[in-house]
């Protein structure tokens, strides 16, 4: 055998070699009755153990903390979206499950700090393989994954999640965009973590 | 016996030295008469024979430069005099023009005649209003006396002389940037070839010479090539102005043959200011690698300085004594280069900008020995990579100072700041303090 089993040396390829190797796997009956009893004992013991079955969907077992579930589009502390519509997630996606279209933040309609925001954001959960490459690619930590795994439906269309399905809910102190950036700040301030909540002046004024 | 050879500066002590009257009293405008009677090519040959080399820094033979101008090409030729003296430490042309502007004008007439130019330009830096005014007055005097304009001194030669005042940019001392500026564009160096001798000002054959080079011409015409080449050393002929500044007892212009040493010049200048010792000095302005006390006996000619690892440059000897912080001095120079970078090419524009930040940190004692290596590496990426020589000039003081004073840089880093008292290096500091 080669030292590294992943790097076979010459002569170790081909069907003949494979057949030869499988022929070497022992396929003999158990050696004795005692050995058979040993096997039954394992089964018997398991019958008296506490069952591991979870009564889903009545009971939902928590996932591991890093479980790759449904995506979420995060917000800055004042409610502005972190997504800048850069499409790097779409670029990274090996399953071509993400569609992003960027757009220009304007003075009247600011959705994210800086010049650009994601106007269209779709993840197709029929395609998504939950590999997490998208969240690694995200330069603003806008895209993260939740632990939510209940992603089944009877309509294929419903499994294409739109931006509003993916956006994180507003927390205390957040305002629903579009609204202006925190007074006196620039996009750098947001990325340096200097914006810790919204300011009354960011409240959109309604002229209706 | 003094080693001085006052030619250009011979009569600077006279109160009216800048007037045409004083100039003529000492034989001024005599060389023009002589030159206009010669064939232009003979004038070029004479200057070639004299061995006169450009006094602006590079030391290119002046006669050879004139000889590059294609003759009989039915094109206008131009002479441009570079009076954009703006390198830190360099201070020879302005005193010369203040005290004796007519020697330049006479040189211009002769040089223009030699290269068959009908127009000559003096490009002078804008900050020196007093010199500009004096030069303007001198040009007016020369026109009035018939030395400029149509049919100069009845010899049938026409020459118009234009004084152009720059807006104050170091880069405009670079000859092609100067030409751009003179044409009304932003001063940025041009791609060569074509060289100015083929396509210079307004794309016509142009000679660009330093003030001192052109001012040296009348004396060569008057006294002959042999007289001139008798002075100086084998390959660096003639006399020149050495400008001593800084921590010397008696700073100023010292006109001496090429090849004199700083030790000799310091004797003439009364030595380092009392109570102090020489620490380092520049042989030719801030863009030439610095020297230390070990170089006191280096012959100050093109070859001598070059052999010792620096450049003669403009012979601007800035002398610093032991009260000067090398990091501080280098930072100030680098700030100058950053401010004066024209921005055309990347290494100079971005490099000088970065160097200032690194040096500021170093002066403030921020950093480690690794930062000195980074500094050297950044300088290495600038040196010889830029479009013109400005960035090389910015790199020189850093490389040479690290060569001689690396310990002092380290001292800043170990003490967490500058160990020097900046006041001690000022002229108003009491003698021998600290």
């Amino acid at each position, binding site marked *: 055998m080669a030292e590294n089993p992943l790097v076979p040396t010459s002569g170790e390829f081909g069907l003949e070699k494979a057949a030869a190797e499988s022929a070497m796997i022992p396929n003999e009956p158990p050696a004795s009755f005692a050995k058979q009893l040993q096997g039954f004992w394992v089964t018997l013991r398991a019958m008296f153990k506490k069952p591991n079955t979870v009564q889903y969907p009545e009971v939902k077992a928590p996932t591991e903390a890093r479980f790759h579930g449904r995506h979420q589009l995060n917000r800055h502390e004042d409610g502005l979206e972190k997504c800048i519509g850069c499409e790097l997630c779409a670029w990274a996606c090996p399953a071509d499950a993400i569609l992003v279209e960027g*757009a220009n933040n304007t003075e009247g309609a600011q959705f994210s700090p800086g010049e650009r925001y994601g106007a269209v954001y779709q993840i197709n959960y029929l395609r998504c393989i939950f590999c997490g490459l998208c969240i690694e690619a995200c330069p603003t930590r806008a895209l993260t994954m939740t632990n939510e795994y209940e992603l089944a439906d009877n309509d294929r269309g419903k499994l294409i999640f739109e931006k509003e399905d993916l956006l994180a809910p507003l927390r205390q102190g957040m305002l629903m965009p579009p609204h202006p950036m925190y007074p006196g700040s620039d996009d750098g301030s947001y990325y340096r973590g200097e914006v810790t909540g919204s300011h009354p002046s960011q409240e959109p004024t309604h002229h209706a | 016996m003094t080693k001085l050879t006052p030619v250009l500066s011979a009569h600077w002590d006279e109160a009216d030295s800048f007037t045409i009257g004083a100039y003529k009293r000492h034989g001024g405008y005599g060389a023009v008469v002589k030159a206009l009677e010669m064939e232009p090519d003979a004038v070029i040959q004479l200057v070639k024979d004299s061995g006169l080399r450009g006094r602006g820094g590079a030391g290119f033979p002046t006669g050879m430069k004139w000889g590059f101008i294609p003759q009989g090409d039915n094109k206008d030729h131009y002479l441009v005099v570079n009076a954009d003296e703006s390198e830190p430490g360099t201070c020879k042309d302005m005193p010369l023009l203040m005290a004796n502007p007519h020697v330049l004008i006479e040189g211009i007439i002769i040089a223009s005649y030699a290269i068959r130019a009908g127009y000559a330009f003096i490009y002078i830096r804008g900050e020196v209003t007093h010199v500009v005014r004096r030069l303007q007055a001198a040009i007016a005097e020369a026109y009035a006396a018939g030395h400029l304009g149509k049919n100069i001194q009845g010899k049938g030669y026409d020459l118009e002389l234009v004084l152009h005042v720059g807006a104050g940019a170091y880069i405009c001392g670079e000859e092609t940037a100067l030409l751009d500026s003179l044409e009304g564009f932003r001063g940025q160096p041009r791609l060569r070839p074509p060289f100015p001798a083929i396509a210079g000002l307004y794309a016509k054959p142009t000679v660009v010479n330093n003030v001192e080079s052109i001012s040296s011409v009348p004396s060569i015409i008057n006294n002959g090539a042999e007289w001139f080449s008798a002075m100086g050393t084998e390959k660096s002929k003639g006399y020149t102005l050495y400008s001593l500044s800084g921590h010397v007892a008696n700073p100023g212009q010292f006109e001496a043959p090429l090849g004199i040493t700083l030790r000799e010049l310091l004797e003439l200048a009364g030595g380092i200011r009392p109570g102090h010792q020489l620490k380092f000095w520049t042989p030719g302005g801030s863009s030439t690698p610095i020297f230390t006390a070990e170089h006191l006996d280096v012959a100050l000619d093109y070859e001598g300085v070059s052999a010792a690892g620096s450049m003669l440059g403009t012979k601007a000897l800035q002398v610093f004594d032991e009260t000067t912080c090398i990091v501080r001095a280098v930072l100030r120079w680098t700030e100058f280069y950053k401010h004066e970078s024209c921005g055309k090419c990347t290494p100079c524009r971005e490099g000088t900008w970065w160097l200032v930040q690194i040096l500021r940190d170093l002066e403030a004692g921020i950093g480690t020995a690794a930062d000195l290596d980074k500094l050297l590496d950044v300088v290495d990426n600038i040196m010889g990579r830029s479009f013109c020589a400005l960035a090389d000039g910015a790199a020189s003081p850093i490389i040479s100072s690290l060569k001689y004073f690396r310990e002092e840089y380290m001292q800043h880093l170990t003490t967490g700041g500058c160990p020097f008292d900046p006041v001690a290096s000022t002229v108003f500091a009491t003698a021998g303090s600290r």
Partner: protein
Amino acid sequence: MTPEALTEVEMITVVIDGFEVTVPKGTLIIRAAEKLGIQIPRFCDHPLLAPAGACRQCLVDVEINGRAFPKPQASCTIPVENNMIVKTQLTSPVAEKAQKGIMEFLLINHPLDCPVCDKGGECPLQNQAMSTGRGESRYEGVKRTFEKPVAISTQVLLDRERCVLCARCTRFSDQIAGDPFITLNERGALQQVGIYEKDPFESYYSGNTVQICPVGALTGASYRFRSRPFDLVSTPSACEHCASGCAIRTDVRRGKTLRRLAGEDASVNEEWNCDKGRWAFKYLSSKERIATPLLRGADGELHEASWPEALAAAATALKGKRVGVLVGGRATVEDAYAYSKFARVTLGTNDIDFRARSHSDEEASFLATAALNAKTTYFDIDKADKVVLLGFEPEDESPIVFLRIFKQVKKRALSVVTVAAFASRGSQKLKATLIPVVAGNEAAAISALEGLTEKSVVLVGERLNESAGALSAVVELLAKSNAKLGWIPRRSGERGALQSGAIANLLPGGRPVSDPAARVDVAAAWGVESLPTTAGKSTAEILAAASAKELDAVVVAGVDPLDISAEALTQLLNTYVLSFEIAHSAVTAIADVVLPVAAITEKSGSFLDWEGRPRAFTKAIEESLTRSDLRILSMLAYEMGTPINLPSVAATAREIAALGNWDGAKASFTPAKSNKSLKLAAGEAVLSSWRLLLDLGTLQAGEPNLAGTARPATANISQSRADSLGVAEGEAITVSTARGSITLPAHITAMADGSVWLARNSDGSQTIATLGIVGGEVVSVVKA
């Protein structure tokens, strides 16, 4: 390059990284290395711009005759020489370190904008930072910042933080476009691209700077944040806007054209195009586009109909009737051929004309002779000793022709003469000698032209037909001087339509209708007994006949009646109109049947540019369900029982090729006399006009950013007229006819006193709609 040019050049052999390469003398090192496949990183270098040597990214080690340069040299500035040995970053550690050092310098102040930058993904700085940059920055300071982005025109945005100051944009604007509206300002680390405060970057060619910017410093407002390169499907295409013939690239995302770039074609547009070609494509996805056939019902309204219904209705209306065909100037060669064949075979008429504009019989004769046989190319402009512009404003009417002339003006002071109302900005840039004429008097001015040789190029615009006798004078001038003729129509399809016989006096391949042999030739190829012999009608005659009910129906394909005359639309009201259109228009509004056709991105085909050079293109939007004109005509002809058998573009192209060009007797030109000079009373002038490049043209609709850089309309008059009217520059004057009046700021310029000039179709200056004329007629000019 032509073989002729190749043989002239001395060849130089140089060794780069140990490999020999032989290139023409004058080739720069960086270009010679490309030939070997050695990519030296670069920013400021551009093959069509003069070397700058500014970015210093392309430093290599150079040795000549065994003597090495002491320091690395910029390979974009040094031409190769014999006995030169070059070591690039691949073989020289010095060059490699130099390049890495420069890249580090460029990046220390470059913002981390890639995620929000439009250039991200197709950025030379990104790519070269990967190949030549360090993994981690050694820079610890604060980056230089500027306000961003700055709109330097409505269509171009400038981000100075991203700029690497390569000066490609400023050099392009100065050297190629002659519009030095952007320059480098300030110095040192503060150097930046800028415009004059009140002078935005309103060049017709500004989009090229966006394309050649090696970073995201210049971006197009219309494409801002629209997509990433990996979203786009790119198709090489041909520009449909004018007869320059630009190769372009169409970038489509999910069935929608998002961007168009200049394509590369060294013999035509080099690597440039104009802003109209680049940005005027929103009409393709306009809400006005028609998706299904429309039939006018009993209620007088248009209703959506199925194809069989619509075709049946149209077939019934046309079968056996007297029908005229207006093809329009934007049809592809194949479509125009189909219209020509449809008219002759199915409709049995010669009443077909592609000239949806002013025209004359003199012009028809000129087109069938001189224009058809013109072989002048861009390359002739390169070699010309003189260029004469007659009824032609290259910058406005064929912008790439302008660039080509400007290149020679810049390079070798090519002499340009223009016979025009006044010296337009384009003419000024070309340093053209202006021969000012009052419209209508062109013939005399042309006859008086002198000093033309067989190397001179005479460029005739389609507008010259508006002056009677002028084209006859051109024919005479060409005969006298042997100068080369280039006929440059404004529209992309006209030269192809001429070649395809979409005009009354010609059959496809330049065969004269009047020549029985030519008719037999074509009839045999088409498998029909004979072709109609009756002389056909021109556009104006078709319209007049329709109005007078001498025609029963008119097929109108992509024609804006206001391009022809103010009355054209009304003339169509009396007749049955079958409209082939991409979008709702004035014609579809009155049409009886509307058949939707494919727009440029939805079909394949070809144009002939003004040289006659084929500009083939393929479908950019595969998903499209629309059909090209020829397919629909073929279905309609089948429905009418006289098939033309043109099932596809490819089949049509094959048929055209098989038919070939006419090699029989050429038609001869029938000269016309010029009109007598018009008598002018005080306060009267003769109107001249032409269309500016950016105006109210239908195909420019829906793109406000482009419209924002259109030149404002003015009324141009001479100084002495201004004096007699008592108006100063910029004061309003009114130009009127009995039909209407136009009031605009006066622009005083050198022109004949008897002349007044207006933009033909600009905002506030639509001469046909408002005044009812294009020029050559008397108007009154008064102070407003």
